[in-house]
């Protein structure tokens, strides 16, 4: 009986605690948000920072953006939700962030946009951003936005680095000219991926004319084993340089195991494969975060779409692995980046590639009718294919041509 009373007492105490907690947390909140110079921003992530790649790249940008805005007297309070793929959980997270007082909510993955768009109409004063997608800028809502970066520029430069290494191997007699084959591990046969590896290939070809490329799709954005298997298959097929558009470092480690080289995406992969990984390119989201948050903070509204490149500092290259890169890579890289910045060099210069032996002179970029077939927006003019062209077209990639010199080993939709 004594035990029973003790238990009951404990119960009463705990409930009393809870009751206080419920009431106690209320008054603390308004003080926080009313604090001068503070703005809340939300970020909905497909993964978490442990991926050391895609989501980590966003988390890193939240920190740099916070620092940058702090210098301007704006205190950003980030609220981050993790591991949300699509569907209702994404909608719930957006709703929760809006309720929590976030003025801007960023969704970091393509698949989150449809769910985000179901919540946006209920919160007209909150700005919603669907990164890498294209449904928000063309809808009727003023508070939905898209954003991306001209990552093809970074891929092109990574391609130049890879091409220089291949050309050096040819010049040293390590491989014959026709053995300069790149193996590319792609996620899906999707414009974003196609655009990326084509830019990469063109970069390599600009310094190593005999280069060819094989692409193996894995049918997943993030599957370490499949990516490793694809990289191994490419090595077995004679590829001497591996690159990737997928989330894991296993293509880099597989390249190292096979004694070939590698360039990566989203993350510095030098630590994972010091003898293989030469360089990576990544999007730096800091500028966009700063721009969007600052505009909202000042009471304005930012553009429905956003896309910047090297010139504005939205594309970054990771540290060059100078132990294994070809001689003169650093200088060449700087030269190419400077040309991209000035507009002298177009990544998709139509004179540098052909499709079925023909130079392309027209391409329709945007689907406005919702049938997934592009029906407006000419992307080719002045001798170049203008990818992720905004303002004018849109930030989401639309380059989906199969150019000569790139062999697709499979397809994955």
């Amino acid at each position, binding site marked *: 009986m004594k035990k*029973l009373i003790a*238990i009951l007492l*404990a*119960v009463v105490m*705990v409930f009393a*605690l*809870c009751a*206080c*907690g*419920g*009431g*106690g*947390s*209320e008054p*603390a909140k308004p003080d926080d948000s009313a604090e001068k110079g503070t703005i809340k921003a939300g970020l909905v992530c497909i993964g*978490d920072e442990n991926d050391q790649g895609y989501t980590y790249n966003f988390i890193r940008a939240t920190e740099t953006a916070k620092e940058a805005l702090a210098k301007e007297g704006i205190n950003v309070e980030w*609220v981050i*939700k*993790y*591991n949300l*793929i*699509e*569907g*209702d*959980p994404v*909608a*719930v*997270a957006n*709703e*929760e*962030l809006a*309720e*929590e007082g976030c003025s801007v909510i960023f969704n970091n993955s*393509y*698949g989150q946009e*449809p*769910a985000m768009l*179901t919540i946006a109409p209920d919160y007209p004063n909150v700005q919603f951003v669907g990164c890498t997608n294209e449904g928000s800028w063309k809808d009727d809502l003023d508070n939905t936005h898209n954003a991306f970066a001209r990552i093809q520029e970074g891929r092109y430069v990574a391609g130049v680095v890879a091409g220089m290494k291949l050309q050096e191997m040819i010049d040293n007699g390590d491989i014959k000219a026709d053995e300069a084959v790149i193996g590319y591990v792609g996620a*899906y*046969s*999707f*414009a*974003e*991926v196609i655009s990326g590896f084509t830019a990469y290939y063109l970069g390599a070809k600009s310094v190593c004319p005999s280069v060819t490329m094989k692409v193996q799709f894995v*049918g997943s954005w993030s599957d370490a084993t499949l990516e490793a298997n694809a990289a191994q298959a490419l090595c077995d097929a004679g590829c001497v340089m591996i690159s990737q558009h997928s989330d894991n470092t296993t293509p880099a480690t597989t390249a190292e195991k096979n004694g070939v080289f590698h360039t990566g995406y989203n993350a510095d992969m030098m630590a994972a494969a010091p003898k293989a990984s030469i360089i990576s390119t990544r999007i730096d989201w800091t500028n966009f975060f700063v721009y969007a948050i600052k505009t909202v903070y000042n009471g304005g509204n930012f553009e429905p779409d956003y896309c910047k490149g090297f010139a504005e500092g939205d594309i970054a290259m990771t540290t060059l692995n100078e132990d294994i890169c070809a001689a003169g890579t650093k200088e060449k890289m700087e030269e190419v980046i400077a040309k991209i910045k000035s507009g002298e060099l177009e990544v998709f210069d139509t004179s540098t590639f052909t499709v079925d032996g023909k130079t392309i002179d027209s391409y329709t970029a945007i*689907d406005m009718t919702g049938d*997934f077939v592009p029906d407006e927006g000419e992307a080719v003019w002045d001798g170049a294919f203008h990818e992720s062209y905004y303002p004018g077209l849109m930030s989401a990639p639309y380059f989906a041509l199969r150019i000569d010199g790139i062999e697709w080993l499979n397809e*994955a*939709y």
Partner: protein
Amino acid sequence: MHNQRAPLFHLAKRTSLSPARAWTIRLASFVVAILIGGLIFLLLGDDPVSAYGAIITGSLGKKVAIRQTVKIAVPLLGTALAIAPCFKMRFWNIGAEGQITAGAIGATFFALNYYDKLPSPVLLIVMGLAGAVCGAFWAFIPAFFKARWGTNETLFTLMMNYIVIGLVKWLQGGPWEGKPGSQIIPNFASSAVLPKVFGIHCGWIIVLILTIFIYVYMRYSKHGYEIAVVGESENTARYAGMSVARITIRTMLLSGAISGLVGYMVASGANMTLYYSVADGVGFTAITVAWLAQLNPFAMIAISFLLAILDKGASTLQTVMNVPASISDIITGIFLFCMLASEFFINYRLVFRHDSGKEAVSE
């Protein structure tokens, strides 16, 4: 001799326990869970009181929060109701996850292909029927194998989950994909979306009706009686002239149909699309709900709501207090563990060595 060999303590099944005592144990386990959870917050350097406060306000503090909490509870309750008859029959259906997914596929087929051909109410009913039929079909396969060849239903139903989830992945990237390469099935047209009642998709009304149905079915129908007999002893059932195979298949069909209906509600009401993790672990969490509720449908309402509060509240906790995201899983885990442990102590008791002799005599 006997006493020397006896271990420090052993477990003994309780013969009877007054309901008051049983509820005291349950309450105590709840308190223990709160205290252990509080300890975790203390270790993290957070104030446990405001942390629990955040959980409560986050799940029940606002209208929106309550709506979200109910939205989480709906599939949990629905699926717990679905598996209850199977568990009563001692048929371990852990394939609700797959049956939900199969139901969602059936509903999505009509949502994508008939959204402009049928009036909305008819379409929604057809989608619901399709969901139930597909869910039932997915449950029928392991049930048939069990009835015909005595296969192990636990493994069979579990593996069926992965097959159907793979099927959705294929549909997402294949025939039902929207923009080529996107791996995304377009959102349903508004005619294929469940209407809202009090701001929550009307699935909550459906599951409440189902609760009453299952209660009556299990307690007052001939079917319910047969299920109970088979669960107690298959031989008794056979001796009484019941066809165990028929009862097994029939019960699994019902279970799958309800799971399929849940899949329809989640796809049409909450997600408005189909994607591979449409079931999102509900099929497994519902097992806990069903057990904790002792297969009592009305208790399931309370348990699923409690778990939804924990789920939603823990998620808010992460947003407002910036605790690591995995803390919410840890807190939910602690509560589940303590609650399940309490059921253990209601059914068994520890007998320590000093009174084991006495115990032996009484046996």
